[in-house]
């Protein structure tokens, strides 16, 4: 029995689940959720089987063939795939379980779980894809399922707008990605990833940057990050799964998969985009009030880290840990993937935790209206704190510390300026997270909803606990089973370079500064934002997210739509009115003119005859 059957199974379970739900159980949410969670469990099991029991392999079957354009549907399982597969399957399963509790009373539960299944299908396809085209197909599908789930609350106009925005912004990124694919095909003559990696043909900076466009869109890099915070309109488990742990990381995964297509110039651009994203998002997070928005900006910021890591690291080739040799795993890839993995744990945890809070607080999301939740929801509090500690990179004991250090170490070696920027990013992270933590959990409740909050049931807390474990221990190589270890180990290794100590000191200082500043600055369970009263202009800029959304809205409403209407109007006037009606009118005028020649008198008709004779004569002697 071929290994590919398991891969097929991996795709088949969620697809079947989605199909069954769509066709038979649209109205029975309980069954639907059961099917979906069952599918997630099967996925996890199958994924574990692939990871632990199966060797790396590649499987391809011809899908479409026109002339020399040949796409294969297939699976490319290597270490990178396995790591990503683990993250997706594991977090996916936990989120499914959590959703059972979170969505319990929702009348349209079936649609939610169907959507989750479709997402799992798409995401797994993306991870397994063996060619750029297949990857792109699932890439788009992932975007589509994200679109569906963001817009889950159908009657909320903001949800509709957010989902639309997410899709379109992603498409802008895909615009570059697709051109990149076209160029890759033109340059290499194939789109199969392993064939590409062995290809002799030279890559160009343009190709690299175009492929990176896809990442910019999907992973919320500057300037296309605007959709991600808005995507929080979706149910919170969706945010945890799609917009924190897996889908948004797909951009990073794409970079890692196609690292061999990059050039030094391209990497440089990628690095600075990542760094800028990390900083801008970090600053923005400081002034947000919505708990999910803060986490979303935090995600953007962390994704910036990963992208920056990739941009930094691929300059340093760190051996070849891949048995198939089809992807060159470099330091950057390792660091990025390491951080991706740990981030998946703690960010999923944080989102689920916030989901737990929101659920308990009856959909209250403003942190300034919470407060004092630590006592009401102890498990949530402690697990959330664990995630938070990991995110801010609490020294030594948390996963985030190790993975972030790997990135910083890389930066220290490669690019000093980037290094300092990233350290500043780390300070910001600690600052805004502690702000959130202190205001939401400590102090006393600020609203009715927070007052009546209480701990949620087991289905919601168990996933939190499991993720908390991952958040703490995920930074240690020994935590991972053998099969997942190669890349993590490579990433972790970065921390043991020559400048190990310096980097660690910077990192700890950043942690202390950020944490301390926030602790001092914000009161426990504050009712309003102190920053607003202290530095109003700064707060305004930050709260307005550096005006990105304003600019986009202005562009869409004032530029794009007006241009569209103007073009439409011009076209109507020019074609329909001037030319068409004009020609019709002209013909009509001729018609009226000719009509008026029929005056009805024999006499005038006789002149036609003499005129005709003259005309004939003229024609015959060639006067015309």
């Amino acid at each position, binding site marked *: 029995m071929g290994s590919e059957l398991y891969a097929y199974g991996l795709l088949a379970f969620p697809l079947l689940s989605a199909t069954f739900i769509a066709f038979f159980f649209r109205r029975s949410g309980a069954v639907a959720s059961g099917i979906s969670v069952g599918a997630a469990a099967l996925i996890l099991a199958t994924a574990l089987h692939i990871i632990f029991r199966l060797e790396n392999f590649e499987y391809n079957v011809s899908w479409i063939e026109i002339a020399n354009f040949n796409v294969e549907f297939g699976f490319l399982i290597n270490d990178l795939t396995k790591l990503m597969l683990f993250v997706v399957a594991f977090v996916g399963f936990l989120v499914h379980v959590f959703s059972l509790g979170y969505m319990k009373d929702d009348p349209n539960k079936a649609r939610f779980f169907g959507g989750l299944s479709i997402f799992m299908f798409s995401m797994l396809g993306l991870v397994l894809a063996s060619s750029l085209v297949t990857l792109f197909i699932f890439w788009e599908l992932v975007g589509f399922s994200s679109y569906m789930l963001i817009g889950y609350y159908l009657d909320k106009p903001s949800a509709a707008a957010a989902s639309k925005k997410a899709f379109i912004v992603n498409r802008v990124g895909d615009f570059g990605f697709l051109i990149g694919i076209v160029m890759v095909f033109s340059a290499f003559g194939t789109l199969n990833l392993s064939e590409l990696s062995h290809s002799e043909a030279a890559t160009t900076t343009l190709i690299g940057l175009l492929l990176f466009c896809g990442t910019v869109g999907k992973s919320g890099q500057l300037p296309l990050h605007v959709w991600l915070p808005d995507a929080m309109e979706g149910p919170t488990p969706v945010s945890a799964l799609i917009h924190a742990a897996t889908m948004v990381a797909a951009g990073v995964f794409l970079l890692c998969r196609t690292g061999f297509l990059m050039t030094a110039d391209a990497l440089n651009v990628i690095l600075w985009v990542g760094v800028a994203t990390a900083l801008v998002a970090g600053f923005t997070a400081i002034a947000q009030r919505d708990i999910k928005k803060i986490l979303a900006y935090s995600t953007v910021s962390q994704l910036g880290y990963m992208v920056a890591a990739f941009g930094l690291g691929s300059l340093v080739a760190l051996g070849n840990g891949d048995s198939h040799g089809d992807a060159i795993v470099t330091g950057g890839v390792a660091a990025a993937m390491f951080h991706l993995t740990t981030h998946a744990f703690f960010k999923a945890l944080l989102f689920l935790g916030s989901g737990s809070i929101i659920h308990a607080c009856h959909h209250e999301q403003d942190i300034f209206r919470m407060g004092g939740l630590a006592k009401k929801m102890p498990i949530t509090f402690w697990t959330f704190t664990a995630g938070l500690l990991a995110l801010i990179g609490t020294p030594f004991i948390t996963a985030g510390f190790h993975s972030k250090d790997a990135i910083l170490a890389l930066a220290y070696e490669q690019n000093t300026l980037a290094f300092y920027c990233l350290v500043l990013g780390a300070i910001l992270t600690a600052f805004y997270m502690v702000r959130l933590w202190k205001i939401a959990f400590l102090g006393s409740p600020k609203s009715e909803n927070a007052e009546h909050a209480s701990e949620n049931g087991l289905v919601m807390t168990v996933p939190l606990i499991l993720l908390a474990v991952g958040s703490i221990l995920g930074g240690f190589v020994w935590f991972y089973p053998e099969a997942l270890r190669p890349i993590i180990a490579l990433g972790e290794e970065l921390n043991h370079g020559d400048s190990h100590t310096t980097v660690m000191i910077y990192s700890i200082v950043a942690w202390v500064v950020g944490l301390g500043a926030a602790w001092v600055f914000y009161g426990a369970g504050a009712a309003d934002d102190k920053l607003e009263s202290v530095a109003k202009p700064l707060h305004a800029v930050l709260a307005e997210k550096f005006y990105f959304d304003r600019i986009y809205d202005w562009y869409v409403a004032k530029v794009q739509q007006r241009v569209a209407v103007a073009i439409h109007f011009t076209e109507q006037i020019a074609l329909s009115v001037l030319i068409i009606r004009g020609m019709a009118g002209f013909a009509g005028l001729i018609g009226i003119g000719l009509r008026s020649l029929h005056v009805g008198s024999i006499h005038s008709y006789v002149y036609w005859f003499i005129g005709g004779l003259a005309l004939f*004569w003229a024609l015959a002697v060639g006067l015309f």
Partner: protein
Amino acid sequence: MTDIFFYIFSIAALAGAFGVVFSRNTVNGAMFLIGTFLSMASLFVLLEAYFLAVIQVLVYAGAVMVLFLFIIMLLDVKESAARKTSLYTWAASVIGFGILIVGVVAINSADSIREKAASLPEATGVSLKSFGYELFTTYLLPMQVTGFLLLIAMIGVIALSKKAKAD
């Protein structure tokens, strides 16, 4: 001698024709037309087409013009004084006439009219017998059709003027 006759009758015919065109009174016009027809009949004689000259007098000057006069009298049409021919009509007609005269000149300047056989051929219009032979052999079919033509003309005239049916 014949030359003089030719000129007399041609001028008479043309003058009569102009008379038709210009006479204000319709009866006078008809009279001029009869003159023209008679002059033409004379020209036919000059051209030795005696039979046709006779027919011309009988049919045209006789039957047709009498019919015309009869109708003119019957209708008693008077050209009203108010109805003067407008300047435009005059101008247009004269231009038209000018075009026609160009045509006349063109016809008469045609070389083939001036090219003649060495001798004037024998007059063929003289023999009534051969006329008859031709008519009932070569031209038998047109002859028959003409017969039908006269028939439908007759029936048509009846249909156009007979009293409406009683019912």
